[in-house]
Structure formats: C-alpha cells, structure tokens
C-alpha cells in the first residue's frame, strides 16, 4: 500500500471520526429548536419564509400529512424543473445559446433530480445553460436531499418521543442551517483548488497540436459542493468528478469525499443525540462503518493486485489502473468510489465499468444495503428498518415481546418494516428480470457474459437506491431503461420513506416501557454484532443468486482466464 493511499485513507477516516459528534449534535440542536450559532443570520429569513407559506416553527403534522406534504412538494419540484428546462432558450444566463431541452429528456432529468437520484441521460456541458445548471438543477440538488433529511428527522423525532414536526419547517431548516452554509464553505475550498466558478462563457483554447479546443466552464464549484453535500451525484460535466475541472487535486478529492459523508454520518449521531441513546448511535455507526471498511477493502485490494490475466502475461502493472485518474491514485480512487456507493451519491471519479469483478461487488453491496450511512436521513431510515427487523427476530429469544427504545415492535411495525425491506430487492430483481426477458431490454446489452448482466443489475440497483451512477456499457438511453429505471427510482425513493414514517407514528403512539435487565439492550457490542450478521444474512439471501450470476461468475471466469 502506497504512502499516498495510507495518507488519504487516514485523513478521511480520521476526519469522519472527528466530525461525527459535533455534526450530529449540531443537527440535533437545529431540529429540536435549540439555539445554535446560525440563529442570528438565518432566523429572520426563516421566519419570513414561514410567514409566507403560513406555517409556524413549532407546528406538527401526522405521518400521513407529513407524507402527503413531502410527496406534493416533490411533485411540484419536478414540474417546476421540467418547465424551466423546456423554457431554457427563453431564460437568462445562457451564453452558449442552448435551446430548449427536449420533452423526454426534460422529464427524465426533472424526475431523476427530484428523487435525489441524479441519473443523467445528458452531458451537462452540451445541453444545459448556466441558468439550468445553477437555477434549476442546483436548486433541485438543495431541496431534494433536504426532503430525505426531513423524512429522517421526522422519524427520529418520533423515536425520541416527540411529535413528527412540520415538513415545510424541516425542509427549510435543512437548506438554511445545513446545506447552504456547508455549500458556501465547500465551494470556497474548491475554488481555492482551482475549480471554476464563473458565469463567463466557455473558453476556446489553442492546443499545442494547433487545434482549437472548447473548454466548458461555469459555476462549477458551487455545483460540485451541493452535488456532494446532498449525495446528489449528477456531474456538471459528463465526466463528473473524474473531470479535472470538477475535481482537480487529491485535496479536492478528499474534500468531496468528506462532503458526501458528513451529513449521513452526522445523522447517525443526531439520532443518538435526539433520543438520548448516544451509545446506540455509536453501535449503529460501528455497524455501518464496518460495512464501509469492508467495501473499501473490497474496492481497493483486487484493483491493487491487478488483473490476474494481465499479471500472468508477465506485464508488470501497478494494479488495475484502467479507467482511473492518476492524480488520485489507487487509494484516492477507491476511497472516492467506496464513498459514492456507500453514501449513495453516485458521482464518480473513475469508470466503474472498468473495475475488476470483486471490486464491483463492493459497489453492489453499497447499493443493495443502502444503509452504509446512505443518503442523509434516508440511510438512517434504512438502517433503522434493519434494526427493527433484527430486534423482532432476535428479541423473541430473550423471552419478551421485542421492543426498541421502550416501544413494543408488533404486527404493524414488523409488517411495514419487512415490506420496506422487500421493496428494494423487488425493484431490482423484477427490473432486471424484465430487462433480460424482453427484447427491448436486451437491446441495450452490448457486453456478453456475466458483465453484461452485471450492467443491467447495476442500472436497476442504482435507480432503486437513488444512487444515480452507472456501470457504463449498458445502452441506458433506450426508452425501456428510461421508463423502467425511472419508475424504479420513484418507488425506491418514496415508498420506504412512507413506510418508515408510518412506523414512526405507530411507535410514537405506544406506551413507553421502562428498561429492565430483562430488556434486550441495543446499545451493546453484542447487538451490534447481531445486527451486522443479520444484515449480511438477510441481504445475502436476497441478492446472492444474482450476484452469483453476475460479478461472482465473472470473477471465476476471470480466474479461469476466460475472456469475452
């Protein structure tokens, strides 16, 4: 392992460890309406917003109201986004004079950005005006992660014995207290690293070869900051964070990684701070952190060892560098890709399609689990869904009705949680099955053998997990995939949020039981281990067969020097 790898990993992991507690405490303070240092600049602004939309800071909604408000608002976001993209030609800040975005693409883009997936069927630099980038898409990149965060906060409030809160208040506070201030800081750092932040037009440069080259610029630094802070993941340009203008240096790479993880990790701790169960928060953090490290190792080591077929030819390589940027190296790349899959961001600093089969397994794990911190709020919800299922399965073995934070887990909660769990594999498996079974789906497959199948699975997993990254090579621009993955994206985003909100409300209404020595403790290493094990087993049971047909088969074929 090179020094730069070790240094990158140490800096990133240490930064996360140091930031989790202050970030979590800050989030908890904001959403329990305690004083914070940002009260002064923002309170007046927020009060103005609340007056205009007619809500009060302390008001509360039921789970149903919260859910309806969330869905309706998101629908409005998508519609506004669609309209603005269609009217692009008539709107300002368009130095390249780009015309209206065509209807399917405008729909696809608006829907994908509204669900925090940010699957991109376009190249930003050739399609979107500056206004569309910072006025429309960046706007969506603020409000949609704020939506997921709000849902997480509502659930945590319910778990801490508080009422769910008001969606509009939470949405506003997510933007003003978390995303905006952090985005300003990250933007400035990135600008310092040389990322462009300008409304001036594209540059026309003369290359050494005597050719003319158009270099797209724009408000890239601000885009980059919210792209990662919100686990959005849609690139300003097609190359995303592999483009030197988006991610110029090893330092900017680390900043972007930290931006992705800061809020999801902070939410785990905020859960502990708001419920008063800090030890439980550390238990859950350790479980998710354990998966993160496994993913990191799985991404890095096979790549560092290199392709065995090339190695066997005696061609000395420094690992499998295909599709990777030299400025990040193996260590920086593996950390970035692990993070983007763990936090379901979906931005990429390399070509995922070029990773070796075992490394790609790591990407699948991130999307299947969807709780290795995951998107802020939403990842926590998924983790708590597994906690509820695990408690129910294992809790019976202490001879009591299973309970979580003093609330009994009964039929309603178990059913909702297990349906939320069912949904994710349902979307991925049925989507993949349809794609393989129908000629329309097989039309997009250009790679024979297991890799082609992996590409299909990746597409649906990316949609269901609202990740948004792609395993290149699949003809995803076909109508079949646009429609199917679009539907998967929407169900994957909202259905589990709704189920968890209902669980939260149901638990809130229950009597709180005191903890005794007969209660199953959830804040112990023992429970952490059990949770870890049952997450592995539950997911392995669901995804093992398709993984066997995809990356695992590919790995065995590679070891047998079988090429396609």
């Amino acid at each position, binding site marked *: 392992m090179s020094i730069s790898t070790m240094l990158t990993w140490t800096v990133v992991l240490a930064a996360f460890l140091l930031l989790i507690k202050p970030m979590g405490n800050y989030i908890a303070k904001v959403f329990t309406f305690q004083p914070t240092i940002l009260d002064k600049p923002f309170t007046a602004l927020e009060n103005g917003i609340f007056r205009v939309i007619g809500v009060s800071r302390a008001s509360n909604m039921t789970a149903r109201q919260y859910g309806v408000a969330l869905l309706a608002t998101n629908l409005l976001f998508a519609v506004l986004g669609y309209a603005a993209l269609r009217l692009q030609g008539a709107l300002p800040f368009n130095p390249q004079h780009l015309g209206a975005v065509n209807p399917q693409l405008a729909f696809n883009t608006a829907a994908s950005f509204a669900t925090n997936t940010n699957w991109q069927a376009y190249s930003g630099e050739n399609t979107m005006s500056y206004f569309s980038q910072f006025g429309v898409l960046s706007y969506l990149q603020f409000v949609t992660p704020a939506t997921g965060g709000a849902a997480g906060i509502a659930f945590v409030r319910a778990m801490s014995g508080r009422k769910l809160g008001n969606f509009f208040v939470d949405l506003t506070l997510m933007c003003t207290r978390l995303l905006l201030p952090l985005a300003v800081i990250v933007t400035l750092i990135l600008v310092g690293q040389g990322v462009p932040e300008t409304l001036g037009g594209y540059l026309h440069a003369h290359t050494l070869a005597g050719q003319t080259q158009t270099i797209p610029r724009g408000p890239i630094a601000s885009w980059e900051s919210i792209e990662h802070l919100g686990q959005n993941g849609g690139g300003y340009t097609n190359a995303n964070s592999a483009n030197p203008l988006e991610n110029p240096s090893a330092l900017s790479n680390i900043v972007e990684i930290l931006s992705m993880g800061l809020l999801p990790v902070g939410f785990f701790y905020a859960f502990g701070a708001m419920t008063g169960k800090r030890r439980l928060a550390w238990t859950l953090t350790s479980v998710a952190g354990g998966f993160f490290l496994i993913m990191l190792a799985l991404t890095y080591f096979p790549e560092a060892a290199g392709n065995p077929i090339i190695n066997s030819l005696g061609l000395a390589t420094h690992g499998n560098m295909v599709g990777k940027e030299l400025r990040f190296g193996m260590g920086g790349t593996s950390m970035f890709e692990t993070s983007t899959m763990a936090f379901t961001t979906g931005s990429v600093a390399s070509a995922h399609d070029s990773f070796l089969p075992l490394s790609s397994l790591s990407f699948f794990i991130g999307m299947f689990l969807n709780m290795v911190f995951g998107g802020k709020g939403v990842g926590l919800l998924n983790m708590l869904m597994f906690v509820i299922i695990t408690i129910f399965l294992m809790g019976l*073995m202490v001879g009591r009705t299973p309970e979580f934070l003093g609330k009994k887990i009964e039929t309603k909660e178990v059913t909702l949680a297990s349906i939320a*769990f069912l949904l994710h594999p349902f979307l991925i498996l049925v989507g993949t099955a349809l794609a393989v079974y129908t000629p329309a789906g097989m039309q997009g497959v250009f790679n024979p053998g297991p890799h082609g199948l992996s590409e299909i699975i990746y597409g649906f997993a990316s949609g269901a997990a609202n990740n948004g990254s792609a395993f290149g090579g699949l003809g995803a621009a076909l109508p079949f995939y646009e429609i199917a993955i679009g539907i998967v994206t929407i169900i994957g985003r909202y259905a589990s949020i709704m189920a968890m909100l209902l669980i939260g409300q149901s638990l809130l209404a229950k009597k709180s039981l005191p903890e005794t020595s007969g209660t199953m403790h959830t804040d112990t290493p023992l429970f952490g281990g059990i949770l870890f094990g049952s997450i592995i087993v539950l997911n392995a049971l669901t995804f093992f067969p398709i993984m066997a047909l995809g990356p695992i088969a590919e790995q065995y074929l590679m070891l047998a020097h079988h090429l396609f």
Partner: protein
Amino acid sequence: MAKSLGLRLNREYSSQVLKDTFRKLNPVEMIHNPVMMVVEIGTVVTLWLTFEAPGAGSRSYDALVTVILFVTILFATFAEAYAEARGRAQAEFLRRTKSSTTAKVLGPDGAIAVTDSSKLTKGMRAVVDKDEVIPGDGVIIEGVASVDESAITGESAPVVKVAGDAVTGGTTLISDRLIIEITVNQGESFLDRMIALVEGAKRQKTPNEIALSALLGVLTLIFVLVVVTLAPIARFYGPGATNTTTLVALLVCLIPTTIGALLSAIGIAGMNRVSQVNVVAKSGRSVEAAGDIDTIILDKTGTITVGNRMATEFYPVANTSLDDLAEAALLSSMADTTPEGRSVVDLARENLSLKVLPKAVGEPIPFSAHTRMSGIDLADGRQVRKGAVNAILALVSDSHKELETFAEQVARQGATPLAVAVDNHALGVICLRDVVKPGLKERFREFREMGIRTVMATGDNRITAAVIAEEAGVDDFIAEAKPEDKISLIRSEQSQGKLVAMTGDGTNDAPALAQADVGLAMNSGTMAAKEAGNMIDLESNPTKLLEVVMVGKQLLITRGALTTFSIANDVAKYFAIIPAMFAAVPTLHLLEGMNVMGLKTPHGAILSALIFNALIIPALIPFAIRGVKYRAESSDKMLARNIFNWGVLGVIIPFVGIWGIDRILGLFGLS
C-alpha cells in the same frame, strides 16, 4: 399426570394423529399457513413436471424431489397433529370427569327435579348429596361438606367447603349435603374452557404469533420473488439455464419451512405446558403476556410464607435453663393442635432431643380470647401457661423487666413473642415468626436477573413486613395493605408502562385481578375473583404464577430460536444449490468453485439440501413441544447464548448435515 398421558397418547391417539396429519393437507386448512402452502403448491408443480418429464433421468429426479417435498409437508402437519393430540389427551381426561352427570335441580317451590347436568343454566339451584358429582360450577348457598377435587387438581386430600365457597363441576362430594347455585352456563365452565384451550380448537393466534406470521409471510414473499425472477434473469445465459424442479427445490429450501411447520405446534404446546401445571388460562394472549411481565405482586401469607407462624427460638429468663423453658413450652402446647402449637412442640422436641413425646397427664386449658392464653393444669398440680406477653405478665409475680426486653427484641425482628409461665413464674419467651417457603428466595433472585420486580403485599405492620421482605428477598413490599392499595400499585406501575401480574382469591381482590395484566385467581377463591382473573390455578397455589411467567417466556424464546435457526440454515443451502443448479450452463459451470461442501453431483447436492430441510422439522419437534431450554439470566447473557445455539450453529449445522446426507445418498448411487 404427564406420564400417564404420554402412554395414552401412544395407544389411543396414534391413529388419530395419523388421520389428522393427512387431513391437514387439505389446501383449505393449509391456506392459514402461507409458508407450507407454498411447499404444497411446489409439490403439485413438481408432480406435474414428473409426468411431463422428457426422459427417465429427469423423471426420477422430479419424482424424488416431489416425494421429499411431500414428506416435508407431512412432517409439518404431523407436528401440528401431534401437539393437538397431546392436548386432546389431556382434554379427554378432563371431559371424562364431566360427562354423564345428573343434576338434582331445586325448584322455587322446593321440589327436586332430576335433569342432565348439561341442561343447567346460570342461576339454577342444585342439591348435591354424599358421593355425588357436583353438576356444574357454582357457589355454595347452604351446607358444609368435604369435596374431592382431585379430578381437577390432582390433589388427593379432600377440601372442606362452606357456604359462599365456590365449587367446580366434575368434583365429587364425599360427605354431607350441599345446595349450590350454578354460576355459569354450560359450555362456559372452567372445564369447558380448559378443554377448548388444550385441544387447540378455540386457539386464537396471540399478538406475537401474528406479528411473526406476518414477518414469515413477507420473508416467503421475498424468496418467491428471488426464485421466480431467477428464471428469467438466468435466461441471460440461454433459454434452458434453469430447471423448474430445481427452482421449486431452491424455493422450498429458502422459505422458512422449519418455523412455518412448527409455529402452531409451539403455540399449542405452550398452552399445554400451562395446563400441565394445572393452570387454566382463559386465553393464549394472557400466557404470552406473562412472558412480558415486569412486576409481580404477591400476597405474603400463603404465597411467600407457608401461611402460619412457626416457633423458631426460645428466650429463657435469667434463672431458668433453656431446657426448663422448652419443657414448659412443650407441656403447654401438648393439647394445642393449631399449626403454631405444633411448631412449638416440634421446636421443643428438637431442643430437648426427644424422640418420643412425653405423656402429660392433666387438664388442658384451651385458648380463649378472654384470657389470651392456653396451657395445661398438670396432675402434679403445676399450672403451665403460654400466651400473649401482657396476659402472662398480669399473671406472674416476678419482675417484668427481662420478659419485656425479650418481647421487644422479638417484636423488632418482625416476629410475635409468646410468654411461658409455670405457676406464677415467668420462664421466658417463644419467638413465633413467619417462615418463608423454601426455594422462594432463589426464585426471586432469578426473577430479578430477568428484570422482573417482585412486590409483597401484606396486612402486617411495617416492621414485620420489612423482615419478611428481607428474608424472602423481594424487591419491595406494601405493609398494612388494603385491597385498594394493590390496585393503586398496579395502576402506578402500569402508568410507567410496566406489565403487572398478581394472584388473588378473595372477592376484594377481584378489581385488582381485573386491573392486572395477568391475574391468576385461585380455584379455592370466590367466584368474583375467578371471573376477574385471566387465569385460574386449579391447585390454588399462588407460587404457580412464577411457572406461568416461565412458560410465557419460553414460548417466545422457542419461536424466536426456531425462526433464527430457519433463516440461518439458508446460507448453507445456497452454497449447495446455486453451484449445482447452474452446473450444466456452459459459462456458469465455474460456479462449482462455490461448492465448498464438495457435494458430488448437482442432483445429489440439491436432493441433499432438500432432505436436510425436511429432516430438520421432525428433529426440532421435541424443541417445539417442550420449548427450548430456558434458564433465568439477564437478557444479554440469554441473547448471547441463544444467538450462538440457534444463529451461529444454525449456519454451521446444515453445512455438516447436507455434506453428510450427500455422502449417504452416494452409497445408494443417488449422488
């Protein structure tokens, strides 16, 4: 009783079990068990495939899979039928005591009409004579009689019943004559309830069972999804990449058949375990709730202590020897047949090391409320007395000081002092105290470890209560308790979200019994108490509450353990089946690398997994019926132990089992 039932089961019920095992295959019944329903549908599919099979090789494979699947379902239906039969054997035993009783109904005019006991309704009065069976549950309104309740309680000693006491239908009058008022309609009596419950006929799923069924349903759905989508996904490698029979086998291996097959047997057996300790639960829900109990309220007298005070020590005054005091105490109590008197005799004999009782000649003086003392006027003229300290002090001429000191000392220990005097001389003090039932302290310690708080309720003063509480090791006590105090204690515990259990027998206990989450009424108690409680102990032994809590907990643990085991088993089955099922697909045969068990042939691997899946059901029937081993310990220890036993071993065992079955199949050329 349990042993004799076991014998009966072998002879009378085996044919019934067999019949039920097949009757339960009926899809109309099976639909209530979605997991096994999926297996049944799978069996029909593979049976059809057997007939449609293109060649002999694939036909014999399809046929083998079909047979194994069918046997899997039979194991499941057998488990349920077996559990029900055990219950039915018990019910039959009860029913026999109940059938063909005649009742002599007392009309309003005093005329007696003979009718069948099944025609009795609430409010009717019946006359019962010596050696007759009491025709129904009721209350005595006239007469005193001894009743043989062994039919219900298994206790052979007859019980004396007086007006106001409750009697149970099916018990026999062995002396005198009673007039009773019937308090329940036929079909609602305790016997009826008990029969219905142990038979499982009226069994309703309990809340945890419903929740678990829901989870198992969704898990089954997930596996159906995994397997059903696997067929089209595998088409990526060619149209014939999967074999339907193998897919069915994979599905059956994955869905939680182990717990699905045993779930209802666990519930039925749990109810049986309750009735085996002679407790009638009015619903399965209350048994399950017993497992969740946080606080138990126990009466001191009769529950924690043996019920009578016992002499434990002699305190002789300065110029008297211990032997003299003991002898005087012995003499004074010779004619005293109360338990207290007997305990004085026992203590004195022990002190004097007497093997046989000396003969005391004289005139016994019985205890009277007026003199507050008793004793004997011996033939030699000595007057021996024992009684309340004040009464004796009034009698004797000695200095009071020493005696008073002893009396105070005894009272401070929460015990009762009795003074002993011969003629006009005080000899000393006997200490009478409540004695805690043996083994209770240990029990309460276990409960504390499980997080259950025990509270003792007593009418005694604080000092006495504190001493007994300390001795018994309860966590808390309420002294000078009135029935209202129990209710307010229950309410305050419940308002903190705790579940409370209590025992009671008096009418004034009824409101508290009704308020408690688990109310165990004594069969010897009043009708009101029995109506208010949700369980009745036929042996009227309040300590039984502790057993019920244990059964409740064991019920939940058994379900959790078998569910965990069922899911953990799937890991090995994947490693057996996935490499095998794609062995014939050109690019996928390399998945053979995952065949960590080294199973010989693809078909052999699949059959081995399927056979293991089937055999594990009967192997676990004993656990389902008896409940998994359970010991009192903290939740963390228990969790760690059960996770290892059922989770970790649940992953490992099938690897070994499937490997072993594959070797055995190899001997028959099947793998």
